[in-house]
């Protein structure tokens, strides 16, 4: 846990160089792995960003700066994702599309989940935030992913997600599995049942068990 506190400290100083160097040092010295970094350090750091300032506008600004630093850190981790994949001798079994619904701007969680899929042997395409709705629906039968993972942070976007899932059911190949996740469902688990998804995922373990079914079938 000491790494989390140290990282938070660096983040509060908004020191990007130090943050990247600190994380890369953790990974290269095997003090933690990618999943551990995402789960125990980066995610809590993002969720725990407290702002004691009275002026809410400065708070929002600080949040954006810190999120940008974490984003750089996550991107820098990709070589370690590949390294871990090689070490595990995992083959690529399938294809996943990871996205956020239109108007959803909180995409870092989805970005991390894309790496989880890769670690589980699924080739993940991270489409990013604010996915153009019609373009994605139009292309989904050509892409033919095994999994579509949708990350929702703002609970308002549950509305469009519900519609997105309903449209995917009509357009996507029948074996495409739909997974939902994100803080909108963490805050109120009742909201999960409101969407006709196949799976709800919160942790790396959830992704692992969801993908393992496909993995066993294709091995």
């Amino acid at each position, binding site marked *: 846990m000491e790494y989390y506190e140290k990282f938070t400290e660096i983040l509060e100083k908004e020191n990007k160089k130090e943050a990247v160097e600190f994380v890369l040092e953790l990974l290269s010295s095997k003090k933690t792995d990618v999943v551990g970094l995402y789960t125990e350090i980066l995610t809590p750091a993002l969720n725990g960003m407290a702002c004691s300032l009275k002026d809410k506008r400065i708070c929002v600004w600080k949040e954006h700066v810190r999120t940008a630093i974490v984003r750089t850190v996550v991107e820098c981790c990709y070589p370690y994702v590949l390294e871990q994949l090689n070490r595990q001798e995992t083959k690529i079994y399938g294809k996943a599309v990871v996205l956020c619904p239109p*108007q959803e701007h909180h995409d870092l969680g989805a970005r991390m989940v894309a790496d989880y899929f890769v670690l589980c042997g699924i080739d993940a395409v991270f489409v990013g935030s604010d996915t153009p709705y019609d373009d994605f629906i139009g292309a989904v039968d050509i892409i033919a992913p095994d999994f579509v993972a949708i990350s929702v942070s*703002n*609970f*308002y976007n*549950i*509305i469009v997600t*519900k519609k997105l899932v309903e449209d995917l059911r009509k357009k996507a190949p029948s074996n495409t599995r739909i997974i939902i996740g994100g803080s909108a469902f963490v*805050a*109120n688990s*009742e*909201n999960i049942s*409101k969407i006709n998804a196949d799976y709800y995922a919160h942790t790396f373990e959830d992704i692992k068990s969801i993908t393992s079914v496909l993995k066993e079938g294709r091995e």
Partner: protein
Amino acid sequence: MNNILELKNINKIYGSTIKTQVLNNINLSFESGSFNSIIGQSGSGKSTLLNIMGTLDKPSSGEVIINGINIARMTKNRLSEIRNKSIGFVFQFHYLLPEFTALENVLLPYRIENGAVTKEMREKAVEYMRLVGLEKVINNNSTKMSGGQQQRTAIARALINNPQIILADEPTGNLDSNSTETIYNLLRDINERYGTTFIIITHDRHIAEKADRIIEITDGKINLDIKKQ
């Protein structure tokens, strides 16, 4: 949490020869002190739903229960009293009386019940006008105010009798984004300060996403009902 407002099996059908079902078996309950938004496309029946909640319109069938009492059992005068004391309305088109000044408009709901305005009440009205940022124009004629000012006056008017419920139909529907933000913050502030229950129809996602609960109405039915927490 107790429910301040409940709707049971609400149906609303317009027309006698060609029947149009505007609301289809709506069941909803609202917790006291909650901040709710209702979204839906135009013609989805959301305004009708709000008018039924506000006792302005009557359902074709079903029950409206306010504070545990079925309003079907109330007389017309009792309904007027409920609207006067327990419910505050904010409409898209502010609906101020052009014959009165801003402050007089704010005081109207009080005067409907009590006749004369006491000094304390006048001060309270001025206080609400200050709360909505209009203390400088209280004596302006309502027609000589901007749309945003009129809407904020209408909000102050909705507050004057300390209602338990405020029903708002597109309160920021014809306002610019700055005024929208001001009014949303104002409503949220009132919700926290006085524990007033808010039910707001909006097509503005910035307002809807800040509510505790979003209800989506599609073709007269509840398509989605989600809570933030």
